[in-house]
């Protein structure tokens, strides 16, 4: 079973637009695993204390979630939306 993570913006450029990770995993574990894939990406995902930044919009099945301990068991699709400011 796999968790499909869709990345957007700068993170997609640094890592990939879609990443498949094995389940089960918590949302927090997914984000940490992605952080290990890119040094620059890590800066936008984790803060100085290694905590997941709270300015990431996390969408799970079209709902935004905040619970980093949420367990992803089967086939799930996660979107990580980092803050963007272009205009």
């Amino acid at each position, binding site marked *: 079973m796999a968790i499909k993570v869709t990345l957007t*913006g700068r993170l997609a450029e640094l890592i990939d637009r879609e990443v498949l990770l094995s389940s089960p995993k918590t949302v927090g574990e997914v984000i940490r695993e992605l952080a290990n894939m890119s040094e620059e990406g890590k800066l*936008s995902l984790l803060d100085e204390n290694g905590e997941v930044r709270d300015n990431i919009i996390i969408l799970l099945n079209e709902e935004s979630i905040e619970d980093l301990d949420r367990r992803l068991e089967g086939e799930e699709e996660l979107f990580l939306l980092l*803050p963007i*400011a*272009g*205009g």
Partner: protein
Amino acid sequence: MNRERYARQIMLKDWGEEGQGKLQSARVVVAGAGGLGSPASIYLAAAGVGELRIIDGDVVEPSNLNRQILHWDRDIGRAKAVSAEEKLKNLNGDIKVIPIMQRIEESNGEELIRGADVVLDCLDNFSTRFLLNKICLKLSIPLVHSVIYGFEGRITTIIPGKTPCLSCIYPQKPIEIRPFPVVGVVAGIMGCMEALEAIKLVIGFGTPLLGRMLRFDGERMQVQIFPLKRRESCPDCGNLDFKEV
């Protein structure tokens, strides 16, 4: 009022002459005359918004021209607010366009925004966007916020005291990425959506994106709409007396 000019929108039951009258008396601030502000202000002018205040302290650069459709080859080096005023006045002579060649700062922000019925956040950086959010909360003015990056656009409408604000959405100060990539068409789509939200707010019909964010992915042609949460501890809006919508 030039009825013929606006006939096709006045035909709409929820718009009508009354709605057109509201637009004519409306004062809308467009903060930023760039990728979002160009299409937004063009459609607001065409729709007959009575007063458009265009705030932009920058001059036109060649790298703007893939998306900032108010500015043309011959405008390179010209103040964006002035270039915008010229085009918008030529598009619709009935309306008043006020060009403001300043950046929004702590010192001048309130003065520039005061009196507006709606503000469109068409800026291109976080620090000014957060400042504009704070000013609109303080002056209790609805703020339509949109952002773009590459093929992606996001938009939400913030009503002080009713919806989450920008600092609720992004509590930690984000890292600025400059320069950012932009597909001009995506800026166009998002700027048009901002204009539509502003028109709905002014006339008072339809369902604006209150407490919800719309995300447009132009590469995959996907649209997602998801709810946003207010943070009780928000430093910018936590002090407001909330009436959820």
